[in-house]
C-alpha cells in the first residue's frame, strides 16, 4: 500500500466527467432527495388501504400499479427510499467510524493492543456478512436502529483492517516521530496526524460500504428481517409482492428497479471516487 499517503492539499483540477459519472451523481442526488422528501412527494399514502383499486396494472393514475391492498406502488417506492437507503448510509457511517478508530489505534499502538484488537476483528470477519447481520437483528429485535447496528458490525472489522494496514506503515514515519518527540498525546497523533493521511481511503471505503449497505439492508428486508409491514422498505415490498408475480409483476419489478438504481448509482460514484483519489482496487465488500 505504498503511495497511499496523499499530500493534504492538492491543486484543484476540474475532473473530466463521463456519462457514467454524471449518471452516478444524478442517481445519488435523486436518492438523497427521496430520503429527505420521498414520502411527501408521494401522490398517495404509502400505507393506507384502498380496496377499490386492488392489484391494478400500471396506469396514468397509478404509474407503477397497485398492490393487493390497493396501495399505490409508486408512492410506496418513493417512501421506501428512507427505510432502505438511510439504513445503508447510517450503517456505513457507523461501521467506518468504528473501523477507523479501531484501525488507527491498532496500527499506531501495535504490540499486544494491536494483536488483541485484530484477533477480535478476525473472529468477527469469520462470519459471512449476511449471516452475522441476520443473527444480530434477530436477537436485538426488529427495529431500524438494530439493522443499522447489525450491518455496522459487519463493516467494522473490514474497515478496521483496511485502516490499520495503512497506519502500520505510517506509524514509523518521521512526522509521527516528530510529533511524539514534541510531546503530543496519543489522541493528537491519532486524529490530527494519522487521520488526515488515511482520510482519502476512508472516504472511498465509506462509499463502497454504502453500496454494500444498500444490498445488505435490502436483502435483510427481503428475508423479512428487521422491518415489519406496512413499512414500505423496498426489500419487503419485493418479498410481499413475490406471491403475485404471475398476475401482478409490477409489484416486484418496480421495487427491484429502485434497489438496482440505488446500488448502481452508489457503485458508479464510488468507483469514480476511487479513481480520482488513485487508490488500489477495493473489491467487493461482503
Amino acid at each position, binding site marked *: 500500500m505504498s503511495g497511499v499517503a496523499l499530500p493534504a492539499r492538492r491543486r484543484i483540477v476540474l475532473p473530466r466527467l463521463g456519462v457514467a459519472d454524471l449518471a452516478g451523481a444524478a442517481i445519488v442526488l435523486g436518492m438523497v432527495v427521496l430520503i429527505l422528501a420521498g414520502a411527501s412527494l408521494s401522490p398517495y399514502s404509502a400505507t393506507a388501504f384502498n380496496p377499490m383499486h386492488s392489484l391494478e396494472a400500471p396506469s396514468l393514475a397509478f404509474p407503477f400499479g397497485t398492490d393487493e391492498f390497493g396501495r399505490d406502488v409508486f408512492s410506496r417506492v418513493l417512501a421506501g427510499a428512507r427505510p432502505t437507503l438511510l439504513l445503508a448510509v447510517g450503517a456505513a457511517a457507523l461501521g467506518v467510524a468504528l473501523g477507523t478508530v479501531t484501525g488507527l489505534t491498532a496500527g499506531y499502538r501495535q504490540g499486544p493492543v494491536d494483536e488483541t484488537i485484530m484477533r477480535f476483528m478476525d473472529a468477527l470477519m469469520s462470519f459471512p456478512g449476511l449471516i452475522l447481520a441476520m443473527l444480530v437483528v434477530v436477537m436485538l429485535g426488529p427495529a431500524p436502529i438494530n439493522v443499522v447496528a447489525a450491518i455496522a458490525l459487519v463493516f467494522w472489522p473490514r474497515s478496521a483492517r483496511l485502516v490499520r494496514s495503512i497506519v502500520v506503515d505510517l506509524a514509523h514515519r518521521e512526522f509521527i516521530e516528530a510529533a511524539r518527540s514534541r510531546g503530543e498525546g496519543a489522541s493528537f497523533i491519532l486524529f490530527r496526524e494519522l487521520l488526515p493521511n488515511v482520510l482519502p481511503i476512508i472516504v472511498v471505503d465509506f462509499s463502497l460500504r454504502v453500496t454494500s449497505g444498500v444490498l445488505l439492508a435490502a436483502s435483510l428486508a427481503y428475508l423479512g428481517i428487521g422491518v415489519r409491514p406496512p413499512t414500505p422498505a423496498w426489500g419487503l415490498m419485493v418479498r410481499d409482492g413475490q406471491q403475485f408475480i404471475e398476475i401482478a409483476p409490477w409489484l416486484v419489478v418496480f421495487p427491484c428497479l429502485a434497489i438496482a438504481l440505488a446500488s448502481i448509482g*452508489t457503485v458508479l460514484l464510488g468507483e469514480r471516487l476511487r479513481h480520482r483519489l488513485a487508490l488500489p482496487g477495493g473489491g467487493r465488500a461482503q
Partner: protein
Amino acid sequence: MQALGFILRRVLLLVVVLFAVSVLTFAIVNVLPGDVATAVLGDMATPDQVLAVRKTLGLDQPLAERYLRWLLGVLQGDFGRSLQHGQPIGPILMGRLGNSAILGLITLAIAAPLAVALGVMAALKPGGVLDRVIGGIAVGAYALPEYVIGLFGILAFSIWWPVLPGSSLMDPNENPLARPEALILPIGVLITGMLAFISQVTRASMIQVMGSAYIRTAVLKGVPRWRVVMKHAMPNLLPPTIAEIGMYFGYVIGGLVVVETLFSYAGLGQLVTNAVSYRDVPVIQAVVLIVAAAYGIGNLLADVAALLMNPRLRS
C-alpha cells in the same frame, strides 16, 4: 516440507477461529440485550411463559456452564432441539447442508473457471471493447442483490417464456439432482453474482502479471500469444486468484441464503430464514455455526490449493 508446515499452521488457525466463532455466536445469542426467551416468544409473552421457556432452554443456569454444555454437545453432533419441530437439530442440518453444498459446489465449478477466463480475456486488452463489456456486466451483477437478478430470471424464463420452473420447491429429503431443470435458475443467479467479483479480481492480477518483465521477454522472443498466457502468465495468476475466491465464500453463502429462500430450495439458507420467522433460536445458532465453519474450511482449502499450485513452495 515447507508446504506441510504451512498447512498444519493453517489447520491450527482454523481450529482457533472456529473456537472464536463458537464463543461469538453464543455471546451474540446470550449476552446481547435481547433475551432468548423474549426473542422466541415475541413481545406479547406473559412472565410465566418467559419463565417456562427459560427453563426448557436451560437459561436459568450460569452462562459459562451453558456454553460448555452447548459446545460439548455440538462437538458430538448434538445441536439441541428445534423449538419449532421439537426434533433434534443435527439430522435436520445434515440433509440441508448436503443440499446447499450441491448448489454451492456446482456454482463454484462453473463460475470459477468461467470467471477466470473472462477476467483473462478482459485483461489482454485493458480498455478494449471486450474489457468494457465484461466490466459493465460485472458492475451490474455486483450492484444487484441476488433476488433482483433471480426475480427477473423467473419473470423471463418461467412466466413470459415458460421454459424453466420458477421454484425448486421440494421435500428436504428429496435429492435435488432428481430435478436438474429446477436447479438451473438458482445456479444461474449464483453464477452471475460470482462472475462479477472473480472476473474483476482476475483482470486486475492478470494486468499486473502481463506487465512484468518475464512476460515482456517471452513476448519479445516471439513466443505465441496463447502460449504466453497459458504457460507463462497462468502459473503466476492462479494462486492469488484462488486465494481470492476463497475469501469470497462468505459472499457465496450469503447469496445461497437469499437464493434458497427465493426459489424455496430446501437448503441451510432456507432453514435459517424459516427459523428466523419462527424465532427458533437453537436452529439459528446451529446454522450460523455450521455456516461459519464451512466458510473457514472453504478458505483453508482455497489457501492450500493456492499453495500447491505455487511451484516455489511445493518442493
